[in-house]
């Protein structure tokens, strides 16, 4: 795992002048999608890469230890072995980036992964997920308990009301406290962009979250009516780029950002879509439902 983002002092001048041009971002999003397709081997390789970015997730009311166990095995063996062999990728150790569960299921996940003999990190949602509408005290406590149970990544949701009312200092302070509660665990801050109103707010919230020391910023919980969209991703990526420019880091959001330590896709059904595509690439046929193991 990479080092933590130590964050910076709150500097409101970084966000005060920002205005995101909504129509222009939409157009850019369209452009990228139209101009950056990958085909054949490139598609297969990129899809496998995407597997390594996935936070394989289950966040349901009916989660029990048995389906958590299944999920953990799927995280370890995300793509059928013979398919990987056909691509000569079987020795690359392809697993998903993490397994993501509710705090009460962290113990199950840690146990299952240990049994499977792998060191995939367990991520726990916390801090009043998904709405964030609980007391700060209980939100912080939730984080501490999840870390105690063995979660090494904490997915927190931000308090949207602070964004919508422009209380940036308060937002910074809250995330700072999350950061502290995480201890050595990674802090992944979910912005719930579908509820922030404007892309300008998305940019500002991203910047505040990074200043406060988030290791990742994520688009959404999957529980809002609008979740991850391409335009939102563009705005967040630009915020990350600006943050690194401002903090003196020379990195840009290029290929060097495409590694699991720096880039994640939170998803539950994406993996099976990818596996089907890989199946098609390798065999030239579309897979039957029963051809691929369930998670």
């Amino acid at each position, binding site marked *: 795992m990479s080092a933590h983002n130590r964050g910076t002092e709150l500097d409101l001048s970084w966000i005060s002048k920002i205005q995101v041009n909504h*129509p222009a971002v939409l157009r850019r999003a369209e452009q990228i999608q139209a101009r950056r397709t990958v085909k*054949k081997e490139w598609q297969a*390789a990129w899809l496998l890469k995407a597997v390594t970015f996935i936070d394989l997730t289950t966040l349901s009311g009916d989660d029990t230890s048995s389906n958590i166990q299944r999920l953990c095995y799927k995280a370890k063996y995300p793509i059928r072995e013979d398919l990987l062999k056909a691509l000569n990728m079987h020795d690359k150790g392809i697993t998903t980036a993490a397994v993501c569960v509710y705090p009460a299921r962290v113990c199950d996940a840690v146990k299952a992964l240990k049994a499977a003999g792998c060191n995939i990190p367990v991520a726990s949602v916390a801090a009043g997920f998904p709405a964030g509408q609980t007391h700060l005290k209980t939100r912080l406590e939730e984080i501490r308990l999840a870390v105690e149970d063995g979660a090494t990544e904490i997915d927190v949701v931000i308090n949207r009301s602070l964004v919508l009312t422009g209380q940036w200092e308060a937002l910074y302070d809250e995330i700072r406290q999350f950061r502290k509660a995480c201890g050595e665990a990674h802090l992944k801050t979910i912005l719930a962009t579908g509820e922030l109103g404007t892309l300008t707010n998305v940019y500002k919230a991203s910047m505040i979250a990074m200043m406060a020391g988030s290791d990742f910023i994520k688009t959404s919980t999957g529980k809002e009516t609008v979740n991850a969209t391409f335009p939102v991703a563009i705005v967040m990526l630009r915020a990350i780029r600006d943050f690194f420019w401002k903090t003196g880091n020379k990195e840009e959001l*290029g290929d060097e950002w495409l590694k699991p330590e720096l880039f994640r896709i939170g998803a539950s059904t994406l993996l099976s879509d990818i596996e089907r595509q890989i199946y098609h690439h390798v065999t*030239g046929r579309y897979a039957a439902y029963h051809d691929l193991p369930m998670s």
Partner: protein
Amino acid sequence: MAATRAGPRAREIFTSLEYGPVPESHACALAWLDTQDRCLGHYVNGKWLKPEHRNSVPCQDPITGENLASCLQAQAEDVAAAVEAARMAFKGWSAHPGVVRAQHLTRLAEVIQKHQRLLWTLESLVTGRAVREVRDGDVQLAQQLLHYHAIQASTQEEALAGWEPMGVIGLILPPTFSFLEMMWRICPALAVGCTVVALVPPASPAPLLLAQLAGELGPFPGILNVLSGPASLVPILASQPGIRKVAFCGAPEGGLRLLIQESVWDEAMRRLQERMGRLRSGRGLDGAVDMGARGAAACDLVQRFVREAQSQGAQVFQAGDVPSERPFYPPTLVSNLPPASPCAQVEVPWPVVVASPFRTAKEALLVANGTPRGGSASVWSERLGQALELGYGLQVGTVWINAHGLRDPSVPTGGCKESGCSWHGGPDGLYEYLRPSGTPARLSCLSKNLNYDTFGLAVPSTLPAGPEIGPSPAPPYGLFVGGRFQAPGARSSRPIRDSSGNLHGYVAEGGAKDIRGAVEAAHQAFPGWAGQSPGARAALLWALAAALERRKSTLASRLERQGAELKAAEAEVELSARRLRAWGARVQAQGHTLQVAGLRGPVLRLREPLGVLAVVCPDEWPLLAFVSLLAPALAYGNTVVMVPSAACPLLALEVCQDMATVFPAGLANVVTGDRDHLTRCLALHQDVQAMWYFGSAQGSQFVEWASAGNLKPVWASRGCPRAWDQEAEGAGPELGLRVARTKALWLPMGD
């Protein structure tokens, strides 16, 4: 499990995460070329025309240089055959009701939809442009254009009553163009009932394919004829007696000029360079490239430009994922180019952006307007007030606020200054191919005897012709320039006679210097007048109307002296006053908002004044024609330099007396003198922004020739008289169209 077929490279790509080729198969384009045995002729009257003994030019893949086909070059007789086919087709095509044409255009759109892959691969293969640009942009827009104009055709009888199609249109296309440029022009022409002969440069198969698709639709084979041939055929096409109008377009805009405010210069340049680094260039038929290549000639041009810019002190930044071999050229950002250097004056070639800093928005406007070009511009600012100020102030045909390059069939696209004065799309585009019903068709026989060098050059000297026996009080003497009567520079006068040949009086003999002064005065008055609200302008026109009515008896008696009956004279004065009031009222309802598919937010269709308008009035109707031309020009915010009736300028000078008291100085300037000489001075003045000429065919020909110097819009009567007392010809919609230009202001919204 099924057999495996994976390639070996996935492993490397997994680590490198490079992009791979996304090749678009051009097999269908080649197969289509095969149907012509790799030899393209011309498409005339629904058939391929492949005459013998013609030169041919190879059509090459601009990237590999591979020979794709050979293209026959047309000769004069092929042009004549095509024009004749279009002329015959016009009879049937224009006689059908609009709905029939609408159906035909819709069917053509459907055919394009069905064969779009062929169209986009062929276009990309031959031009080297990125295939997704053609596929997602041009082909879709081509269909939208056909659908939009089909709707216009179906409502033509009601919406365009009083207008009729011009006839056969000759269309001339530049060496590098997209077939879309042709669609922008042929769709409105075909919709209103015209037929087209398009002369395309050698080796442009896409227009031929379009003509074939249209021709194979059946009942109207000759409405679209496409010839390919050298530029030397242009005058031959233009002088065909069957051609009623010639439309031509220049090479599409290549590179860009970028003005960045100094306070954000560093940040903007950094982001620009960062983005440029991520651009991918490659073969046009690759679906994952941002830009293709445009052939060896374009590559030479840009190499030369960049080398010269560098030698003139500019900084050059190049980046992007670009193949190193010719004819690929990386996206290039040129900065610090001294404004006075030669490279700063010429057109920027593709794919170059020249960036320069500015201090204030006002300065940006001055810089942006300080070029002879006036096509389109975009403004990027998050401050609405500032963006609108710039949007309204830019002298261009299209302004996008916080967007760039959007187009839609319902939005008129055009330009001003040297970017031309014709319009494509929207209602404005339709009028390009219409003429008021009953007016004679364009006479294309130009006089070969007219000597442009000497027309109106010398002023015949005028001598005293005896004592004046005009009525009293004597009309004011002098040229009406800058709000007052001034003595002419030549210090001489010309006699004016009445209808019975008696000396009526003397008027000042104006010359080149007086024209210069009048144009200057008009320019000074222009910003203030154009900035007035239409209501304020109307109020002054109404005040002038009232003044004319007060002076009715004097004006009527002067008209009587010119041979009019008293009743008719009084009617002319009354009608003149009515005209002033009518235009004042009409101008209040100009411009409107358009709603465009796929765009959130409005597009404003603005009607802006042309600027300084020169008007040479007809000899007949000395008062009514003068006022009928003056009223719309002023109502729409232009300032004018007018040459009144040569036979009787005294009426205009009477009106000047009232203008002196009612109008601000310089709004309307009236110069009397030798008609041809003044016409020459005005037509050759580069800072006259539009010109109307009502007089002889020779004078019209001269005005049109001379105006090519600054490409100002010209309206010339070519010796045909107009019925100024009739509503249609004296105050009809044609005047309203010609008196202002359209600007499209795109305002995408979203927060």
